[in-house]
Each structure stands twice: as C-alpha cells, then as structure tokens.
C-alpha cells in the first residue's frame, strides 16, 4: 500500500459511507529493531494547516477555539478501525458520534436550522 498515494488526503467515510472529512495526517510509531508501525489516522483542520505552514496551524487553532464549535484538536482514528482502503478510506465508526463533524453539527444547529426552509 502506498500511503501517500492511497491514504493521505483521501476521502474518509464511516461505516455507512457518510463523508466525514479526509485523511489529513498519518501517525506512525518508531520501534527499536522493528519496522515503524502505523498507529492512527488524523483528520482535522489544524493537522491540515500544519502541512501548509506552522503559523497557519496556530491561526486556525486560535480561530477554532474562539468561534463555533470550539474544537481545535484533530480526531485520531486508530488504524485498527480502518476497514478498507480504496479510493476512499472506510473506517468502522459512526460519523455523527465523532468530533470529525463538530463544525458541521454546530453550523446545522446554530445557523442552518434558523434560516427558513433549512429545517
């Protein structure tokens, strides 16, 4: 499996194929005398921003802490939850139960529902 090509930046879907963001980061663990192990996937704006520029990461984190859902820490998904890697990366989770959709939920409950026709 080519991690950069097939996993990083690919669509993340939950067990019902609901879109829950994309793979923004991959975490590995270095071990003595053994090959590095894949431990988690990460999804979240701060992880993504860090790849572009470390300063951008701090800005995004500050923004997220102040406004909206007030969540800036990325969601970590243990590699054991990964069901399938095709063009999409499918994980054995319930998207709505995770923090991956924190901003989606916040917007839905605080903004969209209050606009006529949005409910």
């Amino acid at each position, binding site marked *: 499996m080519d991690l950069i090509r097939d996993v990083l930046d690919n*669509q993340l879907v939950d067990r019902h194929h609901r*879109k829950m963001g994309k793979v923004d980061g991959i975490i590995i663990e270095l071990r003595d005398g053994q090959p590095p192990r894949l431990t988690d996937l990460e999804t979240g704006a701060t992880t*993504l921003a860090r790849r572009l520029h470390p300063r951008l990461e701090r800005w995004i984190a500050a923004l997220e802490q102040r406004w909206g859902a007030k969540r800036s820490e990325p969601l970590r998904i243990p590699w054991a939850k990964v069901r399938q890697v095709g063009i999409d990366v499918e994980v054995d989770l319930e998207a709505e139960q995770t923090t991956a959709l924190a901003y*989606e*939920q916040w917007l839905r409950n605080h903004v969209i529902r209050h606009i006529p026709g949005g409910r």
Partner: protein
Amino acid sequence: MSKLLEIALGIITSIGGFLDVGAIATAAEAGSSFKFQLIWAILLGTVCVIFLVEMSGRLAAVSKHSLASAMRERFGFNFYILPLVAEIIVDFLILGAEIGGVCIALQLVTGISFQWWALPVAFTVWLLLWKGNFSIIENGVSFLGLVTLGFVVATFKLRPDLPSLGSGAIPTLPQQDITHYLFIAVSILGALISPYLFYFYSSGAIEDKWDESHLNINRAVAGLGMGFGSVVSLGVLIVAALVLNPRGIQVDSYEQAALILTQTFGYWGFILFAASLGIVCFGAALEVNLDTAYIVAQAFGWNWGENLHPQEAARFSSVYTIFVFLAALLMVFGIDPLQLTLFSMALTAVILPVVITPFLVLMNDQEYVGNYRNGWISNSVIIFTIALAFVLAIVAIPLEILGG
C-alpha cells in the same frame, strides 16, 4: 427516463453551461471591434472544451469521484490548494460578473440602475439553491436559455458573406490594435475553457448518479451541447460584426451590445437581448455559485450535494449562502459589469495551466478510469491545451496590466 430524453435534456443543459456572461460579452466585443477575425478563437476554444468536458464527465461516471476530489486525492492537498484558491478567486469575480449581467438585463428593461438589482438577484439565486434540487437548477433554467437561439436566427436573417466568415476561421493578426486583439482572443478562450464548467459538470454527473452506462450520453452531451453553445456564441459575434462594426461602434459597455438585435427584430429584438443576457447570466450565476460550494466541500471531504437538504450538508450550503452575497457586493459598489467580465475571463486564462495539467494524469490513471483511459487523441488534445494555456497565461498577464 429514456436515454434519448436524457441526452436531449443534457444537451440543452450544456448549452446553458457553455453560455455565460463571458461568452456573450467577449463575442460581442470581438465582432464589433474585429469583424469576423476572431471566429477562430471561438472554434478553437470549443474543441478544447468539448474534450475536457467529456473527460470530466467520464472521470466522474467511472470513478464516482468528482474532478476536484480526484485532484486532491491524487496530487495531495498541498498541490490542490493552488487550483482551489485560484478557482475561488476567479469564481468570485465571475459570479459578480454574472450577477452583473442579470442586473444589466433588468436595468435595460426597467431603467432602474443595475446596482439596485444586485442584492435581489443574489437573493433569488440563493433561494433557488436553498429550496431547489439539482434537476431544477439544471433543467429549469436551461430550457429558458433556448431564447438565445434568437442570435442564430438573426445571423441567418442578416445573410453574412460566407467566404469572409470562412476566412475568420484562420487566425490572422490585424494591422492595428494588436494588443487589444490579443486581449480579446485570450478573453474568448478564457471564457470558453472555463474551469468552473469542468468542476461543475463532474460534480453534476455525481449528483445525477452516472455510471459506465452513461458514457455515451456523456459523449453526446459534451459534443453536441458545447457545439450548440458555440453556435450561439458565433451568432453573437457575427451579428455584432454585421450590425455594430460598420457603424464604428466598439462594445465597451452592455448598453451598446443591447442594440445588436433591434435592427433585425425591432422592439422585440431589444427585449430578446435583455432576456437572453438575463437568463444566461442567471443560469451561470447558479452554476458558478454551486461550483464554489462543490470545490470547497470536496477539498475538505465534507458532505456535499444540491440534492441534499441544507441541514444534511450544513457547511456546503453555508458556502454558497455566504459566497453569493459577497460576490453581489461587487455590483453594489458599482464596478462596471463588462469590464469585470473581460478582466475575469483573462484571469481565467492565467489559472488554466494548473487546472488542466492534472487531467493528463487523472485520465490515464487505471484506478480512477480503469479501461476507459484516454486514447492518444484525447491525450494529445490535453497536451495541446496545456501548451495553449501556458502561452495564454504568459500573454494574459502583461495584457492585463496594460489594460488591453
């Protein structure tokens, strides 16, 4: 739905997708300033756009992934951020120009200045996206777009001289005003080969749940739809060349373009022009606004879809809600719609290379398009378009600074 009906609908839709404020404005400007001499630019742009639209449809039908998602997955976010930001900026200006086109149409008919119409028009665009679904957006507005065939009828009534039309199909440089000529040529190509069309079309194929069985429809729709759209553009150019050019009128403003059908159709010609401009720009405004929401949502892997209820895709619908009102502000501040149009078309040409180059990789990727990979003809067209786009990008920047 029977396949034939689906094809017919698709063709009508893509006439609407092809024609927008840019296509009309650049064609009118080209015809009035240089007679038939820029016909080649429309023909060249049409061939490129047919191939690229077919590919974005094929990519979506086979891989079930839109162009934007595929670009982000294959090239990584750090690359995709380039076309994404560029496209958002261009979409912003184009959306402003499309809203401007609708406002001008309303000003022509009512006499009330276009600035006053900007927010009501933006609100109507938003309301349709908020309440409607994809097929309303796609089919409803495009059927109205058939009024633009008036330009084609006018062309026949004016009986243009065929040999001189034919000579316009071959690129030649004029004796004077070379910078202006090149600027319009770049703007025409930028208006026809518009990236938002590819992103929108591939997202639309997914909204319509296309699969491999739709590949023939895709081919017919891309070829015939874009072809018909191009015929209307040519009509605008030819009518402008026959009506305005002999009098020495160069289209610097929409008020001047509004006169091109009065000679042929009288009062109804004036109304027909306003209606065509208004409908085409309104349809395009819907598409550009939706397109921006598509590419942003797809960039981050959010849930998206015009067929979803706004609360099922909260971030997606927030994007188009905010974007359309921001773009309308351009018109509220009274920026000249035609100048904005020409500027954003030339700017489109600048961002083309970064949007088209990924086609070459994606359309040859077994994992995405499987057995439906590009043949050598399609690949050659992409390579040619990339080369063309690079030349345009290099030419467009100085022309833009010099103001054409």
